[in-house]
């Protein structure tokens, strides 16, 4: 009897095992691993981004060329975007929709909130926020720090504000990827939030005229601002055919004659695209002369040294902020400008907020104005979607890293989303 019962137990075990093995396929859901339609779409996506690089298509699409008739810049911009749309539309099947996300290239339009006075607004509009390709339009809006609008890409803060009072408001905007630019001197220890946000290490000191240089150009952040500095534009008012250019601690006369521009002490008269050198000061490249009435010229400046980014500024400079890891402009052990990427406020690289502080410099100086302009454009986040389409949760994307636009050596990322299949 014992033996008989034992065999029954073995039979039950073997039978249960066989039953389990046979029924196993029904316990699991096998997804279709032969999804070649998805693979094909990903291949097309990657191929397209590589081919776009080969053809230099983004040089035309992301940078709107200045028009001889400045009134039609928006039309030109829309035409550029239309070109990209047509190419992408023909690559994907008709039932697939798409969107491009760009990081590290400034958009056509930047919206700015500012707690500034009417004089400061006028100065910003006239001296700083002039077209700088790819950003052509800067929409400046007066705001109160109590009520910052989330429609702005960044905020410029003037004066000795206690930012700790607005911490929750500022924090919520930082979490949305919004940037902040602070323009002020420090004559005493600032509030803790200002220190934390802009990386300010206060130490009492005096002001004196000093040379200021980009701090550690091998640092990625400093190099990034310096690259933007030499690629952005200074607009000089030349109404009546003459104007002034203020670099370092000197002023140079600018004269337009036909299609040529003569700048005092510059090595030669230059036309559009040409470069001259003011010895010991800067290389100056003429980008464009106002095609309608010659009321302005746009120029680029760079160092006369081998490394074009190694530009030397000169200004009366308050030595009250110590140099630290965030410093991008310095003189000795003191900082004149800090730039930070606040990674802990965002889960995605694309939305990391950027902040920029610069001391309250002499606002007549075109080189320091250009540095502020570069800081503002950088702090805007340089992140946008080209077609502004709603991207659904169920989507795929491919991504490509580009080395720069038109030789500016500023790396950027393009993500191509596709969905709807």
């Amino acid at each position: 009897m014992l033996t008989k019962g034992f065999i029954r137990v073995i039979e039950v075990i073997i039978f249960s095992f066989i039953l389990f093995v046979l029924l196993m396929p029904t316990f699991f859901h096998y997804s279709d691993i032969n999804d070649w339609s998805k693979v094909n779409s990903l291949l097309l996506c990657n191929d397209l981004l590589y081919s776009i690089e080969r053809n230099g298509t983004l040089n035309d699409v992301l940078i709107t060329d200045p028009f001889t008739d400045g009134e039609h810049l928006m039309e030109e911009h829309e035409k550029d975007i239309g070109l990209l749309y047509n190419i992408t539309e023909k690559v994907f099947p008709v039932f697939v929709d798409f969107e491009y996300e760009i990081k590290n290239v400034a958009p056509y339009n930047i919206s700015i909130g500012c707690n500034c006075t009417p004089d400061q607004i006028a100065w910003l509009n006239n001296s700083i926020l002039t077209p700088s390709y790819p950003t052509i339009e800067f929409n400046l809006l007066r705001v109160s720090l109590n009520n910052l609008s989330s429609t702005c890409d960044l905020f410029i803060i003037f004066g000795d504000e206690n930012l700790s009072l607005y911490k929750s408001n500022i924090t919520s905007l930082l979490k949305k990827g919004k940037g902040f630019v602070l323009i002020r001197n420090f004559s005493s220890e600032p509030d803790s939030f200002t220190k934390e946000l802009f990386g300010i290490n206060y130490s009492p000191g005096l002001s004196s005229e000093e040379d200021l240089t980009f701090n550690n150009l091998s640092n990625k952040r400093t190099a990034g601002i310096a690259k933007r500095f030499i690629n952005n534009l200074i607009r000089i008012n030349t109404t009546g055919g003459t104007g002034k250019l203020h670099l370092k601690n000197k002023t140079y006369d600018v004269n337009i004659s036909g299609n040529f521009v003569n700048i005092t002490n510059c090595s030669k008269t230059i036309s559009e695209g040409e470069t001259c050198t003011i010895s010991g000061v800067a290389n100056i490249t003429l980008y464009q002369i106002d095609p309608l009435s010659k009321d302005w010229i746009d120029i680029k400046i760079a160092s006369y040294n081998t490394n074009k980014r190694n530009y030397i500024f000169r200004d009366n400079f308050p030595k009250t902020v110590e140099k630290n890891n965030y410093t991008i402009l310095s003189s000795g052990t003191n900082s004149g400008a800090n730039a930070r990427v606040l990674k802990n406020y965002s889960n995605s690289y694309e939305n990391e907020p950027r902040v920029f502080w610069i001391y309250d410099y002499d606002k007549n100086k075109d080189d320091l104005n250009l540095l502020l302009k570069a800081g503002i454009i950088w702090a805007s986040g340089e992140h946008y979607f080209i077609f502004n389409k709603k991207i659904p949760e169920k989507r795929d994307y491919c991504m490509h890293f580009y080395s720069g636009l038109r030789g500016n050596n500023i790396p950027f990322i393009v993500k191509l989303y596709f969905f709807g299949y």
Partner: protein
Amino acid sequence: MMKGQVNIHFIISTVLFVSLSIYLVYLIIDFYPTHSKNIKSDILYSKAYSISELLIKDKGYPENWNENNFERIGLASEPYSLNSTKIIEFEKICNSTNLTKIQKLRDSFGLGNYNFVVEINYLNDTNVMKCEPAGRKIGKEVEVKRIATLNKNFVEVIVYVN
């Protein structure tokens, strides 16, 4: 036990055995053809994919190959940038009536007995070339489409394998 009687254990085990056997046969019938077809399709797709990779990213061998000395076909000057001279040479090989040359072309793609067709079109649908070796009309079972550039224009390179 009386003759002609079966006990309950026998009935249950027979029913279970028969039903499991039926289920097993069903599984085999259902599973095998589907997956067999998928495996075949995977092989064709991987062949088409490897041809497309060679065509749009590789220079070929020798680097300046022509219809008479080619060892491996590649249409690119550099990845994603197609060379119009190589496209012309490729077309000459495809249109050749020399079966040895055609077999060499298929071997250079590692195709063995598989057939293939390659089409290159501009994105506005203008045809640049079509390669149907030895005039074979094949069923276009598997298709892989790639994008590249030719003389600063975007083109699609479509590879069919059967």
